[in-house]
């Protein structure tokens, strides 16, 4: 047998990028299950519909780029993007909202920048941000958790009909999110709002459960060493600290840290969005800054901005600064007194 000439190392740890993506998809399942439990079939339909569209767009673009289709499709990154965007959409988002969102995420945010690994922005969040700005009505039409509805969730067929706009969504199934409610409390104090709003007084358990489920998936990924603890921990800690500071100084105007931590996309974002390695800072120190500033930005935009939730914007803003962070947070190399800094070549 002819001898191969290959440079070292000669052994590799068995692993594929596709496996990493699959693990992440797997880790979203508890969160998806919790969403479905509280909001019906909507989230699942969104995810499946988004995944189908994502594969379609991915194949089309890979064909256009004249690359081997199965090789690139096997990295599962398109499906992961679709799952993340599907989870972020409101339960009864119309089909075309998903269609546009996935198109922007896969074709524009990912492939126009050179495909997996070359995209500066988190594709799912680019899609989400575009939808939020372009279709604010559809994107803020959230559903009440099943805890608050008398008849329980809509059935599968009804949900499909609503999503594909065969029938209109019954009014009983529309409700603002807790963050939205809190943002538009008007002249009421936090305590008054708390007692008056059924969503805030009774419905918050749904969000606690959903956040818990996503955190569970995140812990799994941490244990599997898919990513390091730096981004989720720094992001959550920073959000808790800043919301705790304002809540402590004026409880009647600001929401408590637990409210900030569990409502909206914070936990989901901390474990599944901000940790996207392609678009995050790369060194451990950089990741700490990256996460912490996302937490801070979330609080700032939520409290003083126009939008009730801010995970997408905060993540995208920090995606912009990731290269900068990378240049200034390099580790100290063995044998060096201090780490090099800056972009000087």
């Amino acid at each position, binding site marked *: *047998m002819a*001898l*191969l*000439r*290959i*440079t*070292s*190392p*000669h*052994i*590799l*740890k068995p*692993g*594929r*990028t596709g*496996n*990493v993506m699959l693990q992440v998809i797997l880790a979203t399942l508890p969160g998806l299950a919790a969403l479905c439990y509280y909001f019906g079939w909507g989230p699942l339909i969104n995810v499946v519909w988004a995944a189908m569209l994502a594969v379609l767009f991915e194949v089309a673009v890979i064909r256009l780029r004249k690359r081997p289709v199965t*090789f690139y499709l096997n*990295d599962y*990154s398109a499906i992961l993007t679709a799952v993340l965007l599907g989870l972020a959409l409101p339960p009864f988002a119309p089909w075309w909202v998903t269609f546009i969102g996935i198109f922007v995420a896969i074709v524009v945010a990912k492939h126009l920048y050179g*495909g*997996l*690994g*070359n995209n500066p922005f988190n594709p799912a969040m680019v899609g989400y941000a575009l939808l939020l700005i372009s279709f604010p009505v559809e994107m803020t039409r959230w559903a009440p958790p099943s805890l608050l509805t008398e008849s329980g969730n809509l059935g599968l067929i009804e949900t499909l009909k609503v999503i594909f706009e065969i029938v209109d969504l019954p009014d009983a199934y529309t409700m603002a999110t807790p963050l939205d409610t809190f943002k538009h409390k008007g002249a009421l104090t936090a305590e008054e709002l708390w007692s008056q709003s059924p969503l805030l007084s009774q419905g918050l358990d749904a969000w606690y459960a959903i956040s818990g489920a996503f955190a569970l998936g995140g812990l799994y990924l941490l244990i599997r*060493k*898919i*990513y*390091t603890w730096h981004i989720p921990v720094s992001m959550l800690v920073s959000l808790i600290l800043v919301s705790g500071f304002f809540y402590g100084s004026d409880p009647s105007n600001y929401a408590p840290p637990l409210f900030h931590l569990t409502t909206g996309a914070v936990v989901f974002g901390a474990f599944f969005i901000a940790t996207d*390695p*392609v678009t*995050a800072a*790369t*060194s*451990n120190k950089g990741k700490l800054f990256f996460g912490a500033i996302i937490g801070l930005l979330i609080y700032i935009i939520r409290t003083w901005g126009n939008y009730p939730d801010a995970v997408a914007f905060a993540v995208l803003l920090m995606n912009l600064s990731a290269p900068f962070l*990378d240049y200034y947070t*390099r*580790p*100290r*190399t*063995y*044998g*060096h*007194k201090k780490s*090099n800094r800056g*972009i*000087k*070549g």
Partner: protein
Amino acid sequence: MSRIWNFHGGIHPQENKQQSLTIPLRQMPLPKRLTLPLQQHIGTPAIPTVKVGDKVLKGQRIAEPSGFVSIYMHAPTSGTIVEIGDYPVPHVSGMSAQCIILEPDGNETWIEHQGVEDFRTLEKAELAEIIRCAGISGMGGAGFPTNIKLHLSDDHIVNTLIINGVECEPYITADDMLMRERAAEIIGGIEIAAYLIKPTHILIGIEDNKPEAAVAMTEAARTSKLNIEVVVLPTKYPSGGERQLIKLVTGVEVPHGQLPADIGIVVQNVGTMSAVYQAVHDGKPLISRITTLTGKALSSPGNLEVLLGTPIADLLDFCGVDSSKQSRLVMGGPMMGYTLNTAQIPVIKTSNCVIAGTLEEFPPAPPAQSCIRCGNCEQVCPAELLPQQLHWFAKGKEFDKALNHNLMDCIECGACSFVCPSNIPLVQYYRYAKSEIRNEQQEQRKAEQARIRFEARQARLEAAQQEKEERRKARAEAASKAQAAKRKAPVTTTTDSAIDPEAELKQLKTQAAVARTKLKKAEKALQEAEQNGADNIDQLKQDIESAKQKSELAQKAFSDAENKAPAPAAPSLKDLKVAAALARTKVSKTEKVLADAEAKGAPSVDQLKNSLQKLKEKAEQAQKAYNDAEASETAGNVSNASSSQGTQSTAASTSAAQPIDPPQNDVKALKSALAIARTKLKKAEKALAKAEEEGIEELEDLKQAVAEQQAKTDSAAAAFAKAEADCQTAKEATNQGPDIKALKTAAAAARTKLKKTEKALADAQAQGSASAEPLEKALSGLQAKVVQAEKALQEAQAQEATLA
């Protein structure tokens, strides 16, 4: 137990060490042929001290160091040197290098050797020399000559000696086996090393996957008087790397760009310690080592005591290789070893392992996917680099950025490639970037050297030029001073000669011609373009316009210059001559026409005759004018010779020579006048002869002209002879100083003149000219003068000789 620190990163690949530990250490039988590369170490190759055909004994020296970082080599067994030539050697590149080929005789006859009873009685230098003479270089990795590491200069104070028994790479068990089998030898070697470098701490680092070795070493260490501590380290690759091991057992990092010795630490491999012990205790040089033979293609993997130079093919055969299953032959471990493309490569001092791997064992790497910056590489990098960033920089050829990200601190351990989920061959990228950077630096150094050399050359040339210039100046000054002193005459300065108007005129004429040519070309191009219907006609027209303007300007400049140009003094004569000739030509033409007309009986004969008459008159006038001018010129030349000569000779010589030269100049002018007169006479005679032959009417005129010319020539010859005689006397009068050169020239000139005159005389005589007589006279005069001149010269020379 001393504390164990940690280093960043590291990986835990499958160990695969058990395969080669099932069978105890075996002795490899004597091979048929040993190939001994002259370079088995870091540094310069050794130089052979044996010739082809030499019989050598086991342990006999066969090569010597070629520098400080170089080592001795010894014959691993007794036999004959059969060849010294290029063979493939163990190297990443698969290159060939010079090897000594030894054919064993099978007797294993040792050369006389003797160990040292008690090395403590020896001086350090002597001990280091014994290690040097045993040809020991590091047996763990790089192969650095051991004597240098153990005999550091006095400015290095070593506080810690670390013995590396970590063997962190998968598959390799050579050091493990050595520690199990020869722990006492290793401790003996450590004692020698400790005697040489006097460390305060001695630590032996062993990974916890080698418990037997750790136990054996601990027990052996107990027998030593030294305080040797065995440190059992957690298994992690690459804790056997020198810098990683130092960090592990001391907590200290070797600063970037420094050696461990710079911070008082020396690291030695266990195999090297055993070799040191054998060299000192038994007097045996390094001629064999323990090598691990492993891999799934071998039926009986294990550790072998192998003579250096044994071909790997022999080892594989001994271990029962199934060459149909073998797909990759790796020298060293799977993480940092390199593949071999032939099994004919020999075992050298650093060969710790040979892996004959099957395809299942070493499957080809899957195609690389995109980097998703997962950061796994960063988590495992023992040098704390950012491999994912370095990968981008290497890929994008941004080598400056790669350098700034400390690419050169990469130890190429392969941990990053190992963990990469996208299967990117990261280490390859780093090797590529490193070699590109090294090439670039080398180029820069070369360019810098070339620049320095060029500048030095330039300076040298300039200096030489300046020196030359100065010498020239000094010479000129000395010459002018000497001249001034000699002449004792005021040196009159002459103004710089103005730009030669004639040359200027010529130039202008050329310019005008060039402009005209250009204009013509442009016109031609325009015509062509018009014919072809090209679209750049406008452009061409413009060109023509500008060419025309230029041409006109040039022509105008030329004609202006021509008008302005002062009427040259000499040409008048020439012009007159030409005019006369023209007139004559016209006359002859008209005569011809008249003859034709007469023959034909044309009515215009009278008219023609008239015009002929006129023309003849004109011709005569012209001829007369010319003759007059010529006569006046000759006269002028005689009288104003000095002034006209001034323009011809150099200013300095004129001004300096003025007091003496006038008569000489007269002579010259007279001479040329004489020559002219003679030429004219000849022409006239020739014309006369022709006319006589043809029977032309003007015969009488011509005869007269010839006679006139003859008279003129005679008078000129007489004037010349007289002037020359005057000149000679004048010269003699002024020749007071021993101006030998001038005298010599004068004598030579006189001789030449004499010859010329003789010739002229001969001509004149042949022609029966009347001027023969005066010429004869002149000749005799000249002869006398030549004699005089030569005499003067001799006298002057004699005078000078006496003066000197």
